[in-house]
């Protein structure tokens, strides 16, 4: 059926993870390009191999894992949650209890990664099941506020459980990403220090990048596959019309609990990975802002779509860097004398008594770059939802449809 991508003659074809040859090729190319990033093989992308950019890419991949989980709950099952940060925290602290070293008053068992990483997900899923009875009973906006309450209760527990979470505002050291069979001295695979793999010298960020790429790919496939299983379909039925779903024999409470558990599992894994990669996180990290970031990823990317959520993660994580670079460029133009100078000067305050929306120094008129980030972030969430409710994925669909019919408009 070449040339007629929308014609399916077999049910299996329509249900395939990647239904068309174009998509198969595109995903394969994308994955291959991603794999080459640390080796600087592709001319335009060689700047990404620096450790600073790799750290950001790793963070984006970890956020993608967490956001895929939230997408299952929000996009697939239609249950609104602001409690994702809480479940990430549960996962992270399960990881640090099982994998961390006991020192002083801090507890830790020092177990290897193949125990603490899955356990982080399972612990978060269990907590998800425990809190589900309160969440399953309430609907819509009530649920959003209940899960908001979870974040505050969780933050309180983490902040006060210093033998687990370490001192407030300082936190404790998470286990490094090293693969061991048991507690032997040298790690079998060490992701946490620079070294040589197969004769190629690699930064530790590059090693972590490979690990994260594989994990993110694995969880993407799992998430995409879930949507076509019996469980995934029951989620979609609950989302579309819960009463109709119940009439058809979908157990409402059971499906919602499952959605919470699966979403929390993803969150737990993402939380453990995030903490392990950063190394040391304060208990205040698992706050409402983190939850909002994840909801923003799902909504900016496009709720319910896996590709959109992946795009959204990179967008939200890389946005601060873009804003920083942009204000740097603006500041540079404000100093020069090109045609752009007056516009740039309007935005940038060059000295403490100059007018401008942004000031690059620590303290002066206008916003700092951090504050500009936050403002842009909030503005983008609002504008996206007003102008493109389907998010980045919707923009992609529009571009695709434009070229499909080109040169005709439809």
């Amino acid at each position, binding site marked *: 059926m070449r040339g007629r991508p929308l014609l399916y003659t077999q049910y299996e074809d329509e249900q395939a993870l990647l239904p068309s040859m174009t998509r198969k090729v595109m995903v394969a190319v994308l994955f291959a390009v991603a794999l080459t990033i640390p080796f600087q093989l592709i001319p335009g992308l060689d700047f990404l191999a620096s450790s600073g950019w790799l750290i950001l890419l790793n963070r984006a991949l970890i956020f993608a894992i967490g956001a895929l989980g939230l997408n299952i709950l929000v996009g697939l099952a239609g249950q609104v949650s602001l409690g994702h940060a809480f479940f990430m925290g549960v996962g992270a602290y399960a990881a640090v209890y099982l994998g961390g070293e006991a020192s002083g008053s801090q507890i830790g068992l020092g177990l290897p990664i193949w125990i603490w990483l899955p356990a982080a997900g399972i612990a978060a899923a269990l907590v998800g099941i425990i809190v589900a009875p309160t969440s399953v009973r309430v609907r819509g906006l009530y649920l959003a*506020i209940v899960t908001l309450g979870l974040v505050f209760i969780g933050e309180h*527990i983490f902040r006060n459980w210093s033998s687990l979470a370490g001192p407030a505002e300082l936190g404790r050291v998470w286990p490094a990403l090293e693969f061991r069979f048991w507690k032997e001295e040298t790690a079998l695979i060490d992701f946490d220090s620079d070294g040589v793999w197969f004769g190629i010298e690699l930064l530790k960020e590059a090693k972590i990048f490979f690990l994260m790429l594989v994990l993110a790919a694995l969880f993407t496939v799992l998430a995409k596959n879930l949507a076509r299983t019996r469980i995934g379909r029951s989620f979609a039925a609950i989302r579309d019309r819960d009463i109709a779903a119940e009439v058809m024999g979908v157990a409402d409470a059971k499906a919602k609990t499952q959605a919470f558990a699966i979403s929390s599992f993803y969150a737990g894994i993402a939380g453990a990975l995030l903490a392990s990669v950063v190394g040391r996180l304060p208990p205040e990290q698992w706050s409402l802002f983190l939850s909002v970031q994840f909801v923003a990823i799902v909504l900016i990317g496009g709720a319910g779509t896996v590709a959109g959520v992946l795009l959204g993660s990179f967008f939200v994580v890389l946005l601060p860097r873009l804003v920083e670079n942009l204000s740097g460029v603006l500041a540079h133009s404000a100093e020069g004398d090109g045609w752009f100078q007056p516009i740039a000067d309007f935005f940038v305050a060059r000295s403490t008594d100059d007018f401008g929306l942004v000031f690059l120094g620590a303290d002066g008129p206008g916003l700092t770059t951090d504050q500009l980030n936050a403002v842009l972030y909030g503005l983008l969430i609002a504008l996206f939802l007003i102008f493109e409710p389907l998010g980045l994925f919707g923009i992609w669909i529009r571009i695709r449809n434009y070229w499909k019919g080109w040169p005709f408009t439809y």
Partner: protein
Amino acid sequence: MDMMFLAQVGSTSTEILISKIVDGLALGAVYALLALGFVIIYKATQVLSFAHGALSAVGAYLVSYFAVVWNIGGRVAGGAPQTIQFFISAIVGIAAAAVVGIVIERLFIRPMIGQPIFSIAMITIGLDIMLRTIGNDFIGQGANRSLGQTSLATGDTIGAPWGLTNFDLGGITIPHSYLATIVVAVFAMVGLALFFRSRTGIAMRATAFDQEAAMAQGISAGRIFALAWGIGAALAAIGGAFAAIPPRNFGVNNFTAFIALRAFPAIILGGLDSIIGAVVGGFAIGLAEVLTGHYLASFTDTIGIGFNTIVPYLLMLLVLVVKPYGLFGTPEIRRV
């Protein structure tokens, strides 16, 4: 954040209880004002505004700006008592906050009519981040640094006339500002009750009940939406301003916006769409927070420091397990 300057030396336990109850009622009045704003916006427009925290901080900042920097009260009525002067400035600040609310409604909420409720709620989260950041930039680090006010001793960073003065009723000390909070909140509630009986108020109730039928009767739904946001923002400003005066806090700071987050349990406790519920929920949460803060203070080893700040959420979870639509909320009737 919360500083207790109540003299408790030599007080009996009953006297402490009474002053704590007044303290709790004053905090409850702040929550009730914030919760009322939430509920009015929700009832009229079906929007749950997460931007309320930012609105309360911005409103409180505007009040302090007009009272301290511009001193509008002093310019208009120089000879009048300080309380009158403050109220004049405060009304100007509250009106300015209402304008902010109306502008938000027009720019960001109006285009979203008919969209899923959570998309709109998410927009208000975006607005909250934006407003809070810009507001905090004006407020600066610490209490009101940008206003050049450092007079912690008199505690007049927001321009309120009460400072740290107390009523002393033989063992029971009640700060003037607490009483002022309760009185103003009660006035605001009575005012709202009267407003809902007026022509515009009835129009708002009609719109909340059935938008289409209201429009068929010649009510402009858009104007009602703007009005609801204006009233909501004004109530948020009053709540924020009273949360920022001593002895509870010394001026507007970067944490003022977070107080409104604890008003969420209040509206859920009472029910999202119930005005009475917002008031009852607000006072209940305020009392619970202050009383647990005082009476469980000796258990911090087991329950942790700052346990009283999560009591509202625990109370909310407890009520929701029993009544999923809050104490006074309208249950959604579902039949299979």
